[in-house]
């Protein structure tokens, strides 16, 4: 086999592998992304500020994701990032990530695994916001 045709064959194989990897990523996203729940839910949101002040809101929402559910109840602000909304301010308190301080939230007592705008809301859920410094 000439080196030219071998190089063409290698190129085709590498491109095929790349396409398979892209499709695999797409399948993983469709299979494992957080699934939203429709309908009305009663949820509880608690914000623990660094000075120890605790703000608790219990309310009813038909929002599918937490960020949307918080609108009109708890103010959150942040920046769009690769992982969704990177929350920097909750209920008026700013967490300076350049100082290693971040806002985190627990879902029913366990650390949330999704961003605030991809966290599905379920009936009876409790969300606890708090700051952490690394």
């Amino acid at each position, binding site marked *: 086999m000439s080196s030219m045709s071998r*190089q063409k064959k*290698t*190129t085709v194989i*590498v*491109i095929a592998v*790349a396409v398979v*990897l*892209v499709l695999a*990523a*797409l399948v*993983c*996203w469709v299979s*494992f*992304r957080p699934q939203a729940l429709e309908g009305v839910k009663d949820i509880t949101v608690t914000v623990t500020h660094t000075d120890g002040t605790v703000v608790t809101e219990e309310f009813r929402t038909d929002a599918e994701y937490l960020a949307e559910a918080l609108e009109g109840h708890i103010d959150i602000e942040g920046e*769009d990032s*690769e*992982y*969704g909304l990177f929350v920097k301010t909750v209920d008026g308190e700013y967490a*300076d*990530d*350049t100082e*290693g301080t*971040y806002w985190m939230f627990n879902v029913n007592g366990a*650390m949330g*695994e*999704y*961003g605030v705008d*991809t966290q599905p809301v379920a009936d009876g859920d409790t969300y606890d916001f708090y700051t952490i410094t*690394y």
Partner: protein
Amino acid sequence: MSLALLAAIIIAAKEAMSPLPNIEPVTLLLICAALVYGAKAFYPCAIFVLAEGLLYGFGWYFFVYVYVWPILVLLVLLLRKHITSYVLWTVVSALYGLFFGPLCCLQALVVSGWSMAFSYWISGIPYDLIHCAGNAVLAAVLLKPLTTLLQRLAHPEQSSST
């Protein structure tokens, strides 16, 4: 061209394209730099990472950048003896965009464990796909002319003799 100037171009180009979601010229320019300058490409890479820290703070993302960009330079150095086709370098650039998210998740893996890292990766897949497509298009269009230009600027004595 001096490596410091190349670093400045990488920083300026990245800032100029920052409004575009996950479409960035850094991968393209670091591949060009590593192809032309070899291991010296770590210098503009380090300057770029430091500048990102100074511009945006030494937070979570800075520590990701500390390893994620040098890995790209290292990858190019390891592959450049085996890859001579710009088409294959375009694929490398695209795949690096696709794997950028998983590479970033390594920090989440260390700090918070498998479950959190997996969720981070899943959440970022749409952005990884955009990153992959952006890198592919930029490399397909610009990798060859930019590498040729950089080669001429880095080694003017070679280009003047041809």
